[in-house]
């Protein structure tokens, strides 16, 4: 097919769509703002719920980009995306113009900036970290406090930046619950004698094998789950973190001092997602891009030739993102075949 598709974003959604299109003889130009492709999964070490090495997934995805129909352009941030006639154009800051028959937004997500929940002390106290920081530490298989000590007590707080109208996010980020279970297990494997607590509002274990992992974390690793939202964190004289919550199951206030506090940060729309959606009148809630419909039109938009894939629409897990990307490729091919 003598048609070209512009893919904005070189994360899992962009790569998977690019490869699916390339296999159908469609030329693809994939534009990534960073120096490297693979997006957010570059920051993850192991994946839930099967503890798959994220590096393996990155390798598989990167190899797909070797297809001759795919051109990858990195270090290029698209600032302007617009249609003209039947063609789509994208421009970066240097006024470099890319032209194609259709465009796909695969601009993905960013993790919530935990500093916005000031009461939880991220960026103020040394021993408050985020789930993303935990992953970075886990790459070296060393989870340590700021002082270099092995934590004897660690707490994970769910719903930081999710299900919280105080930060403007009413939605559930979906991945943090299971990620907390995963990280608690990883920690307990490194430090079996330590205590791991997880504070939650609801444990949402909807994915396949999630509930099983949750159960295993209690049964085999003795992770303690406490229903109650932590209201505040404070530092103690020895630079540990004291947290307060209501133990809602016993209806009593509770407090505990932990060596390390991990904030399970939620998923937010990336800046690129919001900017390019707004330019094309496809901006939905919370800065995410809005698909034409929730069912069969989930990859389409109100603009003919503009498609969506992955977490630019809403929080998704990695397998969901990949499936969504392949589904977007199907819709794009259908469009290319019926449009001049």
């Amino acid at each position, binding site marked *: 097919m003598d048609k070209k598709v512009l893919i904005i974003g070189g994360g899992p959604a962009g790569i998977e769509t690019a490869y699916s299109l390339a296999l159908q003889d469609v030329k693809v130009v994939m534009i990534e703002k960073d120096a490297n492709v693979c997006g957010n999964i570059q920051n993850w070490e192991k994946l839930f719920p099967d503890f798959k090495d994220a590096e393996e997934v990155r390798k598989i995805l990167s190899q797909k980009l070797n297809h001759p129909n795919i051109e990858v352009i990195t270090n290029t941030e698209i600032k302007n995306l617009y249609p003209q006639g039947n063609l789509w154009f994208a421009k970066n800051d240097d006024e470099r113009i890319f032209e194609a028959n259709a465009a796909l937004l695969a601009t993905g997500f960013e993790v919530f900036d935990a500093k916005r929940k000031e009461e939880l002390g991220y960026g103020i106290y040394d021993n408050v970290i985020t789930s993303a920081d935990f992953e970075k530490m886990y790459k070296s298989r060393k989870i340590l406090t700021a002082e270099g000590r092995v934590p004897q007590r660690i707490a994970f707080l769910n719903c930081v930046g999710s299900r919280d109208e105080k930060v403007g996010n009413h939605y559930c980020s979906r991945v943090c619950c299971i990620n907390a279970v995963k990280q608690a297990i990883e920690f307990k494997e490194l430090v079996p004698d330590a*205590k791991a607590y997880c504070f939650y509002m609801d444990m949402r274990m909807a994915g396949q094998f999630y509930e099983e992992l949750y159960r295993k974390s*209690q*049964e085999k690793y003795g992770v303690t789950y406490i*229903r109650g939202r932590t209201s505040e964190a404070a530092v103690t004289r020895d630079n540990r973190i004291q947290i307060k919550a209501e*133990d809602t*199951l*016993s209806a009593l206030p*509770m*407090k*505990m001092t932990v060596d390390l506090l991990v904030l399970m940060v939620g998923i937010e729309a990336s800046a690129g997602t919001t900017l390019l959606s707004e330019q094309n009148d496809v901006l939905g809630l919370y800065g995410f891009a809005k698909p034409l419909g929730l069912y069969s039109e989930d990859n389409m938009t109100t603009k003919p030739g503009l498609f969506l894939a992955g977490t630019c629409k809403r929080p998704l897990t990695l397998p969901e993102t990949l499936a969504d990307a392949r589904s977007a490729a199907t819709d794009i091919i259908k469009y290319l075949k019926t449009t001049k």
Partner: protein
Amino acid sequence: MKNWGFKISKPRVLDFDTANLDAYNRLIEKVPSAHRCLMCGACTATCTANLHTTFNFRNCHLMFRRGQFEGLAEELDKCMLCGKCKLVCPRGVNTRAIIYNLRIVLSDLNYKKIEL
């Protein structure tokens, strides 16, 4: 001295830094399935004793987990050990064995001694 009518009230806060959380390990040794409890309350909902007394098994289990032993033995004595709770548990927790063993551990901790 003049009595102004003030008194010091005991704090209600569950303090995880001072609570005896290790006693729970003794229960786990005897009843490993206790770890799996989700605190759903199905046991309490089906409990016959719960219909006529204040006995709440889920809460007893939770308070023991949190290291709060005061008054627990008296509550547990309201159980008739019928085991109906065990039939409804979605996580296969051996609830009846928890009650039995909790009573022994509490007795060892000098809360309402029992003769075995």
